[in-house]
């Protein structure tokens, strides 16, 4: 459950949804990284193994992997990565804003100034945090389909944004197994993709 909500939130994050909420909301007390600082300190220590693995928890089996083999997410994603959400959201925005494929999308927001960008990052973090189960009601934006209808996002753009997410997760030291087994299943789920691409 946690795995699915977290990866769903990352998918939404990937395609700007989280930032489409109330970009002036600041009542969560969470502060995002600042504009122009793509090297924010990650909360996750790349050299440190996740310490909140619950050994008593049964691995989640997802038969819908790329290879068809069972995959297992063996970490409590919220406990392990929840604190890193604001930093991760901020870094994804920073990287996407500099990516040639998304630069024009973000340019009007960047032009509004650092406060607007930071509010956007905060809104993204709030969305993830809600979907993740760490907060409730922090995000006040539209649904995924509502947010993407009319944007005509292409499959190539979706794929490109997924690659940005993977880059950020890797940069922040998320183990490859966690990316593949905890974050990937929903992000590559065709049903999920259909709620974003080609609307």
């Amino acid at each position, binding site marked *: 459950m946690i795995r699915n909500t977290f990866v769903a939130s990352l998918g939404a994050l990937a395609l700007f949804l989280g930032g489409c909420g*109330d970009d002036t909301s600041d009542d969560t007390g969470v502060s995002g990284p600042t504009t122009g600082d793509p090297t924010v300190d990650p909360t996750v220590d790349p050299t440190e193994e996740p310490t909140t693995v619950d050994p008593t928890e049964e691995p989640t089996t997802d038969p819908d992997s790329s290879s068809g083999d069972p995959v297992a997410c063996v970490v409590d994603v919220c406990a392990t990565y929840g604190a890193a959400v604001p930093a991760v959201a901020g870094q994804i925005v920073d990287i996407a804003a500099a990516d040639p494929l998304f630069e024009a999308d973000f340019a009007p927001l960047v032009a509004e100034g650092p406060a607007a960008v930071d509010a956007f990052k905060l809104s993204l973090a709030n969305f993830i945090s809600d979907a993740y189960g760490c907060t409730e009601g922090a995000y006040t934006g539209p649904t995924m389909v509502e947010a993407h209808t009319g944007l005509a996002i292409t499959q190539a753009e979706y*794929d*490109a944004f997924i*690659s940005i997410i993977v*880059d950020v997760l890797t940069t922040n030291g998320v183990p490859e197994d966690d990316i593949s087994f905890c974050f990937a299943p929903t992000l590559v789920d065709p049903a999920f993709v259909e709620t974003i691409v080609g609307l």
Partner: protein
Amino acid sequence: MTTTHPIRRRVLQAAGVTSGLSIAFVAIVGFAHTEAGRPLLRYIPGMSACPLDGPPLTAEDRMRVREQTLGPLAGTTPASTRTVLAFELGTTRRHDVDAWALAHGLACAPGRKLALRCTDVPAAALGGSGDLDEVSFDFAPDDTLVALEGSARLADASSAAAFVARRDASLRTSMGEPTTARGEATAAAVARGPLSQVSREFRRSDVRAQVVATNLGHGRFGVREFHQLLPG
């Protein structure tokens, strides 16, 4: 001469007004779901518009934002060449790209946000890359090429890894050692699991380039390459 009963007339008027308002409502809601109409959401109480749906910037403002966004990503030494694939950043102009597309019989049209997007681009048209499903171009106000992005979905990890290996070798020749290198460009590394990724990034003072292969799950593999002219 016939006269309509006052009550019936009022009912008809009410029905007409209701129908008109309904049609107008549907039309406005429908328009608000188009790209052109989405900014209208800003004016609907309680309906926060996506900040990314802001009004488009002027070309000059976009270049200013580009400087702000890309400036921090610049490396310290210039690239030995700005030639990428069949183009040269900062030199190739829009009409050159149009001529290239015409010469290769490519289907090109304005992209969702970028100036030009060509589909089904064969390797022969790119002078070094593999076949790409899409190649997008962006230009400065003076019509010179400032960004080039290409991508493809492949059916096997070997091809995806080979793409990165081939482009990595080429970029090392033109730009030197990568600034960041993640993963070995091998089929095993790309095929390891969903969202396994192999990437290389090159940051120079004037150019930034990246090549990446990502396992997209379900037996699909995405490859991507982009080149940007950095401001300054």
